C-alpha cells in the first residue's frame, strides 16, 4: 500500500510531515484522548448504560442497516457510470466528470435542501405525477427512510465512482478482446476478468461509503424528519440535550471501534488483489 521510501535521508521526511502531524496531534488526537477519558470515567458506567439500553443498540443496528443499503445502492449506480467514464472519449469523460463532481463541490446542506424541494408534499415530483394523472393524491416521500437513503446515496456517489473509475482505467482493454478470442462470452468476461480486476476499486469505494455513512448526520436529520435516527444523531442528542458527555463519549468510542472493524474487514478482502498487483 504505502510505497517504501528509498530515501536515506529520513530526517527530511519527518520535516515534511511535521506540520500535518502537529495539526493532527493538537486538533485530533488530543480531543480523542479526552473522549476516551470521558467515556471510561466512573469505571465505564456509561458503557453499561449503553449496552443495557435496548434503544441505543437498535439505533446502532439501524445505522448499520442504512449504511449497508446506501453502500449497495451506490455501488449498483456507480459501477455502470464508472465504466462509461473509463471507456468513453475524452470529451464525454470531461462532461461526465462535471456531472459527477459538481454536486461533490456543492455544500451538503444545499443538496439536502434541494432534495426536500424535490420530495416534499408539494414538491416537484409530486406535482409532476399529479399533473400527469399518475397519482390522485400526493405521496409521502419526505421524512422517510427512503428519503434519507436517497439523499445519502446522492452525497456518496462520487466516493464510490472515483475509486472504481480509477480501477477500471487500469484494466487493459486488450484483456476483454483476448478473453473473447479464447472463447469467453460476455458474462464470463465480466465475471472472470472485469469484475476481479476492478474489485480493488469496488472494495475501496464500499469502504469509503460504508464508513462515511455510519457517521452520517445532516442528511438523515433533515430528510428523515425525526422518523429516521442514526447513531450520530443519538450522540448529538446526548451532548446537546441531556448533557451526558460520558455516555456520548462511550457511544462515540463504540462507533469508532466498529468503524475500524469494518475498515479492517473490508481491507482483508483485498489480500488476493495485493498478491497479483503489487
Amino acid at each position, binding site marked *: 500500500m504505502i510505497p517504501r521510501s528509498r530515501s536515506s535521508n529520513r530526517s527530511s521526511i519527518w520535516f515534511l510531515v511535521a506540520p500535518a502531524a502537529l495539526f493532527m496531534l493538537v486538533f485530533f488526537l488530543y480531543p480523542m484522548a479526552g473522549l476516551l477519558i470521558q467515556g471510561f470515567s466512573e469505571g465505564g458506567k456509561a458503557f453499561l448504560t449503553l449496552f443495557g439500553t435496548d434503544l441505543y443498540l437498535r439505533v446502532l443496528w439501524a445505522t448499520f442497516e442504512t449504511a449497508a443499503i446506501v453502500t449497495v445502492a451506490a455501488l449498483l449506480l456507480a459501477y455502470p457510470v464508472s465504466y462509461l467514464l473509463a471507456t468513453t472519449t475524452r470529451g464525454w469523460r470531461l462532461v461526465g466528470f462535471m456531472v459527477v463532481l459538481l454536486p461533490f463541490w456543492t455544500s451538503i446542506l444545499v443538496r439536502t435542501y434541494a432534495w426536500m424541494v424535490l420530495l416534499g408534499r408539494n414538491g416537484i415530483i409530486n406535482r409532476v405525477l399529479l399533473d400527469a394523472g399518475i397519482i390522485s393524491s400526493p405521496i409521502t416521500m419526505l421524512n422517510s427512510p427512503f428519503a434519507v437513503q436517497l439523499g445519502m446515496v446522492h452525497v456518496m456517489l462520487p466516493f464510490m465512482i472515483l475509486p472504481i473509475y480509477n480501477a477500471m482505467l487500469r484494466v487493459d482493454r486488450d484483456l476483454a478482446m483476448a478473453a*473473447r478470442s479464447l*472463447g469467453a462470452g460476455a458474462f464470463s468476461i465480466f465475471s472472470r476478468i472485469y469484475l476481479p480486476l476492478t474489485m480493488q476499486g469496488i472494495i475501496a469505494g464500499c469502504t469509503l461509503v460504508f464508513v462515511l455513512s455510519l457517521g452520517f448526520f445532516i442528511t438523515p436529520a433533515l430528510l428523515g424528519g425525526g422518523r429516521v435516527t442514526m447513531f450520530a444523531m443519538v450522540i448529538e442528542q446526548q451532548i446537546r440535550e441531556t448533557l451526558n458527555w460520558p455516555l456520548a463519549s462511550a457511544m462515540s468510542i463504540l462507533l469508532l471501534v466498529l468503524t475500524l472493524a469494518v475498515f479492517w474487514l473490508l481491507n482483508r478482502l483485498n489480500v488476493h488483489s495485493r498478491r497479483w498487483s503489487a
Partner: protein
Amino acid sequence: MTKLDCALTIENVDKYYGTVRALSQINLHVKPGEFLTILGPSGSGKTTLLKCVAGFETINGGRLLLGEADITDKDPGARNIGMVFQNYALFPHMTVEQNVAFPLVMRRMGRAEIAKRVADALELTELGRFAKRYPRQLSGGQQQRVALSRAIVFEPSLLLLDEPFGALDRKLRETLQLEVRRLQRELNLTTLFITHDQEEALLMSDRIAVMFDGELHQVSGPEEIYQRPANARVANFIGESNLLKGKLSAARGSATTLRFVLESGISVALAARNDAACSVDGEKVLLLRPEHLSPCIDSGCVGNQKNVLPTTVEELVYLGNVSRYRLRMQDGTELVMRLSGSGPKLRVGDAVRVRFSEDDAVLVAAERHTLPPRVLAEVA
C-alpha cells in the same frame, strides 16, 4: 498435441472506417503449416487485417475461410484461432497456470483433461516451474511464452501473432524468434505473423506479404522479396537500396542482357532474367543493393567500361564489420555502398568509380501494379 494444419484463405477482403479505406481487395492464401508474415509500416493496415481475421473487426466485403469453413460471420471465440497480443494481454489476476487453462475452462473441459493439457503446454514452452506465478512476477520473455502457451493450448486451427517481440530487447528477441519458429514447425501450426521489422520478417517467414496503405504489394518468399522486389516501394522498405531512374533501351545488349539508360545518360547492362517487372508496362527503376557496389581501385576495371559509375565520397560510416559510404554522382544522384571491413580505404572527397555486376542489377516497377493472378494463387 494433434496437428493443427488448416489453410487460411482471405478472399477479396475490403474494410472501411467510415469512408476511409483501410483494406482494399486483400487476397491471401496461407497454406497449412505455413508461417506467413504480413510486413508493413505502421498505419499500413496490417493490424486491421489481423483483427479482421481474428473477428474483432467485421469486414465490408469478401470472405474468410479457415480450412473448408467460412468464418466471415463467426464470433471471435467460435473461430478457434489462437492469438498472441502485442502486449500479451495476460490476465494479471490469474497465475500462469490459470491463464493457460482459461481457454480450456471456457470450453468446459474436464478438470483432469485441463490439468494435463496445461502441463503439456507449459512443458513445451519450458514454463513448468513458473506455473503458480502471476504475470507481474515474470520477465517480458516469460510473459510472452505464457501468452504463446495460452494461444496454442486449445489446439487452434490458426495462430495469429501481433508484433509479439516488439517490447523485448534485441538479444532476447532473437532467442524467442527462433523458439517460436521451432515450436510452430513442431506443431505444424498455420501462422499469420504481423510485424513492421523487415529483419524479423526475413528471419522467420516461409513467405512474406508486403503491405502499404491497405494494399498488398508482394507476396513471396524472403529471398525473392529481397532479390526481386515487385516495385520500388517494396525495395525501399526491405533492406537498403539504390533506386536509379531511367529508361529501358529498345536495343538489347545481347540475347541475355538488357540495356538501361540512366537519367544521367549512362547506359548500364543487366541480365535479362533480372527484369523483375517484365510483365508490367510503365516506368521502371534500376535497383542496386549497397553490398553489390564496389570501387574500381585496381586497373582491373579500366578496360571494362561496362556498369561503372563515377562518384565522389560524401560520407562514410564505420560499422565494425562493414563500412557504409554515401556517394554522389555528377548529376546529383545519391548512392549508398557497403564494403566489408577488409576492403580498400576511401576518404571523404575522394573521387571513386564504382561498379556492379550485370547479375546483381535488378529492374523493378516504379509503382505498384495489380498483382498478377500467379502471385495471388498459392506459390509452392
